[in-house]
């Protein structure tokens, strides 16, 4: 009953919603203005340099792709492993995944020096490059996400006029298990390759390790579904409509908690192996420099490990805490924060440590200092605005809620 009333409400009759759209509008205006500046003047308007050629925007790419991982994880659970009780949340998860991946592509278009050549990886192949593989995987996966989501889009009233579109979309939906298998494979590939992007760079000792891709995919599997849970709960608070039963959300949060612990386990062992046991001089020096000159120590231990892994794991796993929806939302919030800070730390900290190649003892490159410029933050706000707009529109107009609600 309430849902029908909500659907019929017009924009103007709801001041809260109007203010929300106003807020999103401001974010989008900031984003568009920043994008115009970037396109007209070039990347010189950023604070990136030849020493730190990647910065905030790459962090956004990596984070939004990792946070979109709920789509493939939950699709695989439902359509491959047959755990049908999770079906209700798949639509929302796929939608969040779609938002995450498109947000990443939007940022990438701004980040590359020649946006007019964005199509080159599809025509000029370098199969040896992880970045090439990632570009391909992301394109293919976005197509899969669209195919998975098409039936949902065609269920809207808009498509009453063209029933054949709906029919085609439902025919595609019959292939959901196949799409889930393809999505799982492609996601396992590129979610880890994003870590390999850093892990294979042999000139930078702090990055060069085989654990990089594993840590990336584990953190994505842990936080992606958790974000979907949090969004489902928040949407229910605001609209009163249920995406899925709380029991289902709780179970997803519990598995997220376990995945977080696995991620933490690999992360701590990685640290122990590269520093305490390995004592590789280059890695030691790099970490020493980071600790001395940047807040790396704090952001790694407090934000990444304690707030980003252990706090959410406790909130998700301890029965006393995971009964409250609020705790799941808080846990997911911190897990998301942990992943974003991790991607920032990986990118910027790795570039902060200068290369050393000179044969002598005197010449040292300067550490690569970097803090995003206003325009970079502006783009970040614009991307957030885009994500919130898509989410709001989706929640309002797309049938992503549990049937019979």
């Amino acid at each position: 009953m309430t849902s029908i009333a909500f659907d019929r409400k017009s924009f103007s009759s709801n001041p809260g919603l109007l203010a929300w759209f106003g807020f999103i509008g401001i974010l989008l205006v900031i984003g568009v203005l920043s994008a115009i500046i970037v396109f007209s003047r070039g990347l010189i308007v950023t604070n990136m340099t030849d020493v730190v050629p990647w910065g905030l925007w790459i962090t956004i790419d990596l984070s939004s792709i990792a946070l979109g991982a709920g789509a493939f994880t939950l699709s695989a659970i439902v359509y491959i492993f047959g755990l049908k009780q999770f079906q209700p949340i798949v639509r929302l998860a796929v939608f969040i995944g779609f938002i995450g991946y498109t947000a990443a592509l939007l940022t990438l278009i701004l980040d590359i020096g020649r946006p007019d050549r964005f199509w080159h990886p599809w025509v000029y192949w370098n199969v040896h490059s992880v970045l090439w593989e990632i570009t391909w995987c992301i394109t293919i996966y976005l197509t899969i996400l669209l195919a998975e989501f098409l039936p949902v889009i065609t269920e809207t009233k808009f498509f009453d006029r063209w029933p054949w579109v709906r029919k085609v979309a439902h025919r595609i939906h019959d292939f959901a298990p196949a799409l889930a298998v393809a999505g799982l494979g492609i996601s396992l590939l590129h979610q880890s390759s994003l870590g390999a992007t850093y892990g294979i760079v042999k000139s930078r000792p702090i990055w060069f390790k085989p654990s990089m891709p594993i840590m990336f995919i584990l953190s994505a599997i842990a936080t992606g579904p958790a974000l979907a849970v949090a969004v489902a709960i928040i949407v229910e608070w605001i609209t009163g409509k249920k995406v899925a039963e709380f029991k289902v959300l709780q179970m997803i949060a519990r598995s997220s908690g376990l995945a977080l612990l696995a991620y933490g386990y690999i992360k701590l062992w990685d640290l122990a192996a590269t520093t305490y046991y390995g004592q590789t001089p280059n890695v030691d020096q790099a970490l020493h420099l980071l600790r001395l000159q940047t807040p790396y120590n704090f952001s790694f231990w407090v934000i990444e490990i304690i707030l980003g892994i252990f706090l959410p794991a406790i909130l998700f796993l301890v029965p006393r805490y995971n009964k409250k929806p609020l705790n799941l939302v808080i846990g997911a919030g911190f897990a998301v924060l942990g992943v974003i800070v991790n991607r920032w730390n990986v990118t910027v900290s790795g570039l902060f440590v200068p290369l050393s190649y000179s044969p002598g003892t005197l010449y040292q490159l300067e550490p690569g200092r970097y803090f995003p410029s206003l325009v970079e933050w502006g783009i970040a706000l614009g991307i957030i605005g885009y994500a919130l707009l898509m989410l709001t529109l989706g929640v309002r107009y797309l049938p992503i809620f549990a049937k019979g609600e």
Partner: protein
Amino acid sequence: MPKKTKIEVNLTRRDVLTVAAAAVGSAVVAPLLTTGPLSPFGALKQGQLSASTEPEHENISRTHHWIMVIDLDKCIGCEYCLRSCCAVNDVAEDKPWNIVVEERTSAGTTFYFSRPCLHCQDAPCVEVCPVKATYVREDGLVMMDYDRCIGCRYCEIACPYDARKFNWEKRNDENPYVPTWGIPEVERRPRGVVEKCTFCVHRIDQGIRLGLEPGVDLDATPACVNICPVGARSFGDVLNPDSQVSQLIANNPTIRLRDELGTESSVYYLPPKEGL
């Protein structure tokens, strides 16, 4: 009382045949994968076991491999190479392709160290480029295709030698080295692509067309080599045993920068006589 566990083994002829076939199959496939021509490790082993200083890539039939030899004892740090390079290739003053820095040996003696692009034969930048905008040419040069580069800057991140520079904006700067140190022979690179030292490839290609020998004839030799007042830099074909660079490598100890990364760079340094 411990329970008696009864183990039943039900093997059909089909099972036995399956297991046997799998065993035989693995026995055949395993050596093929580890040593055969299909093996991904084959090339690796050969490359690592070969003791020769010159990496032979069996799939490339080379006629030339252009290399540079830099004598660290001879270099006086005058930066003529840097200036000439900036003029001839119209490089931005604050982002030289070719750097010259003061250095110290472990004993404390000062020497000067300069670094062009090292034109690695197993170049990390080439491996990571998503569009093959940079590639190793048959004659050993690491080329840059400015028309294909998308400006993702991954090559800049992967290069162990800081040899790559990005065009963050459209350049309008006046080149202070022109015309004193040379006249631009190539176009400025557009905004949004990565650039680096080319070993003056335009001179090499044009020179060979005219029947000149790079490293011997000045018109076919990189600007930095020509202008060096003390002859610290030599250039030439390492596949020609009589070339100056081949002789230098044969008769002197040489080092290559970060050789342990397996980059197989094309720039050899003659270390100071007292050692590094």
